[in-house]
């Protein structure tokens, strides 16, 4: 009996000691650190785009907890230069919102961007037609997918035209007539930024001369007299107060009544027009301007921004999942709405339709594109070339502000464009 009691006591003591000392210091404990795949995305745009894209990226990360998306964004002004630097230094983001013109610039032979065809398992390409895919295909490589189509559109304050007893302009002369009526009240017929001004002048030039300034390969083929014509017409528009001085124009001028119309990308229509619409103003989309009634207008269309994947990306499959989310995910489609235009992706369009979001000025602009599609050509990328546009602006400023003669300016512009053409 005594032995048994001693044994029990010994066992109890042993268990007590073991219970107190649970750590075994000689053991190495290894636990893995939790790291997700990190990819990056860049875009340009304005506040609404930044806000919904950031919200969308949070949603994407919720749906894909194994992926973290770093981001880089900014306004268009300067973004192109940032992008140039990033591409040249190979510091670009993995997923990029790109401009249509950059395809020819950075991927001449189709190898400048990742071939999205390889990511057919991650990206539902069936949401796009053959024609849609063709816009982003270079040399058989699917370099980018279009988000929406875009064109420069003329938006007018219909109430203001009615007030002056004028019809919405359909010819260039109509613009001058409207300016004649409005300028006494310090109202300009149109306000726009430099980029759109040049596209407007180019349309007038092509309609008037039936020639183009650039050939199909983007090479400048204009003459000094051609640019002289353009500068002269610009001066005429400026002197007759048809267009507001570029440096005075801002996005609020349609709303505050300083201009009766504006020229901008359809993808920018909400930014330029919605404040005025919200104030109760009747904003309408005007016909493309022609030299005279019955003429065929020459305007251009392009994919309104696209998504591309960097050739240097470390994890193409994760990038593919992000691109699919941005283009096809119904939740993101609803967040995005028609801010970039009516989506090309059929699944995104379906989501908008189901949520009653295919309406408003952006949608009207989309319908306008569809109506005019047969008369429009894909834009020549050179017309959007930043260097080309900066050159035009700096030279034309001198002429418009009487710092140089027409001949001097035309000659300088021609010389500079020749230089750019190489």
């Amino acid at each position, binding site marked *: 009996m005594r032995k048994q009691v001693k044994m029990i006591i010994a066992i109890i003591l042993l268990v007590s000691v073991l219970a*107190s000392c649970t750590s075994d210091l000689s053991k190495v404990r290894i636990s893995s650190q939790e790291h997700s795949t990190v990819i990056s995305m860049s875009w340009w745009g304005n506040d609404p785009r930044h806000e919904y894209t950031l919200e969308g990226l949070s949603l994407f990360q919720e749906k894909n907890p194994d992926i973290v998306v770093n981001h880089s964004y900014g306004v268009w002004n300067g973004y192109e230069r940032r992008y140039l630097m990033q591409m040249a230094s190979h510091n670009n983001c993995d997923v990029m919102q790109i401009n249509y013109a950059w395809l020819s610039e950075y991927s001449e032979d189709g190898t400048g961007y990742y071939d999205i065809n390889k990511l057919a398992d991650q990206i539902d390409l069936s949401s796009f037609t053959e024609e849609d895919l063709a816009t982003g295909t270079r040399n058989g490589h699917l370099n980018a997918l279009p988000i929406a189509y875009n064109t420069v559109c003329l938006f007018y304050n219909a109430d203001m035209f009615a007030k002056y007893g004028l019809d919405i302009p359909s010819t260039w002369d109509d613009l001058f007539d409207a300016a004649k009526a409005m300028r006494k009240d310090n109202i300009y017929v149109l306000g726009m930024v430099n980029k759109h001004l040049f596209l407007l002048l180019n349309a007038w030039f092509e309609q008037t001369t039936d020639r183009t300034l650039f050939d199909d390969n983007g090479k400048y083929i204009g003459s000094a007299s051609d640019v002289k014509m353009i500068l002269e017409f610009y001066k005429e528009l400026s002197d007759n107060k048809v267009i507001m001085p570029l440096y005075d124009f801002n996005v609020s001028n349609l709303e505050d009544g300083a201009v009766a119309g504006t020229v901008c990308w359809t993808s920018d229509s909400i930014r330029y027009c919605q404040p005025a619409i919200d104030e109760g103003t009747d904003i309408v989309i005007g016909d493309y301007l022609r030299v005279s009634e019955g003429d065929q207008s020459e305007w251009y269309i392009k994919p309104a921004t696209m998504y591309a994947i960097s050739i240097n990306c470390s994890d193409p499959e994760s990038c593919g999942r992000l691109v699919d989310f941005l283009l096809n995910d119904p939740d993101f489609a609803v967040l995005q709405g028609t801010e970039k235009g009516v989506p090309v992706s059929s699944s995104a369009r379906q989501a908008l339709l189901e949520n009653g979001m295919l309406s408003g000025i952006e949608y009207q602009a989309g319908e306008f594109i569809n109506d005019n599609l047969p008369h429009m050509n894909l834009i020549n990328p050179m017309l959007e070339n930043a260097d080309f546009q900066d050159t035009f602006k700096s030279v034309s400023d001198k002429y418009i502000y009487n710092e140089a003669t027409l001949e001097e300016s035309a000659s300088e512009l021609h010389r500079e464009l020749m230089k750019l053409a190489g």
Partner: protein
Amino acid sequence: MKKKSLHFTQIIYSLVVVFGVIFLSLIISVVLLRSVKRTTEDKISYFIAADAHQMELNVNSYLNNVQQVTALLFSDKNYYLYDSTDTSLSDYQKIQNETLILNRIVDLGMMNSFCDFGIVYPNDKSTGWISQVTNQMFKDGGIYSYFSSAIPGDNLKQDAWIINVMGNSDRIYYVKRLNPNAVCVVSFYISELENVLAVPSELSDMTVRLVTGDNLIIYSTNDNDEEATQMDPSIADIIGDNVGITAINDEYLITSNKLSNGWKVVCSIPTSAIMADQVAATRNLIVTVLLITILVVLTMLLITSKLNYSVKGVVDDLDYKARNDQMTGLLNKSTFRTLVESDLEAYNGKQAIAFLMFDLDNFKKVNDVAGHKFGDDVIKRMGALLRDVFDAEEALIGRIGGDEFAVYKSYHDISRDEADKRIHDLTMSLYEKFEAEFKEESDKYLLTVSSGILVTGPGEHKFDDLYQKTDVALYISKRNGKSKPTFI
């Protein structure tokens, strides 16, 4: 018996020692755990403080970057001395200057995700990127005066950080005066700080807040916190005006780090979240000790029960032996008398009392001829016979002499007459069974049984009276030829 009590003492001492050791282990473990808890808290505080300090450096770095980018506008007089309201400049000169500034801003800002990066002038004109959202907030004018007046006059650096501009809590603004008529405005989304103030996944219960010097929330990782409102007072009260501190109480572990612009990074994590392992360890220890205690108690109960059972057996045996006649198992004379007296004294509503005495006739002859062993056997069989007849009646049966037996029964539920009849029947039954049982002994040794039987009603009865009266009846039976009962 002495040896047994020694064992008891030893077991009890052993159990006391075991309980003592367990209790001591518990105390030591709790003390050790408390010490480990304190050390763990210190270590975790140290690591969280290091993390908070890293966040402080990150945010400072982010804010410094904004300040440095803005400061680069001072690299050329054309950028920072330009005044849009200068009437001596022609429109073209202004355009040239503004283009120059815009290009500089584009260069400086292109690698930053700024919402605004521009210069505003007293005529509310601007150059650079002043976003539509910011312009809309001042669509009736006043953008210059708003940002200009936000810079304290006595601030040598002539700059300021502003939140909640015109009710907008989405972005943080930084303003810096370039000249008496120009203020640079920079802004970025507060959400940009998500990466700067990211909570490590291992500390998912931690809340990181960026607050102003007055504890107004600028950014928080906790969805319940609303921007531009006061921080939770229970946290604000703990940190008070202290900066660069780590505080811990039962509720929170809190760090507070001051930024270069006077704002603070405040991290808080529920103490329960970081000490969960410690709490679990304490709980496990207590459960283990409790289990051991229960185990010991059960062992003790088992031992005690076994000992009890064994001792009780001995005691019961001794008691039985003291109370009963060892040969027949019937009550001995003394016990029989005590129990009968006790029953007689008890007032328990007795209706009738029966006292019977039996004496074996010629038993001496059995002993003499067949031997004492056989005689003992006859006595045992007679005891068994009495039991057979009277046990069902729950009567007291005793052996009160060598071959003399007595039976006592008090009735509560039947009258004296009924008791008389019942006793009569039982007696007759006994005689019948006796004849069958002892037929051979009766033939060989003339062994018979005589009896005296007394059945009386309720009253003050004494054992001696009953005994005497019944003995007389027995005597009558013996005198009248034995082998018969005499009822009185």
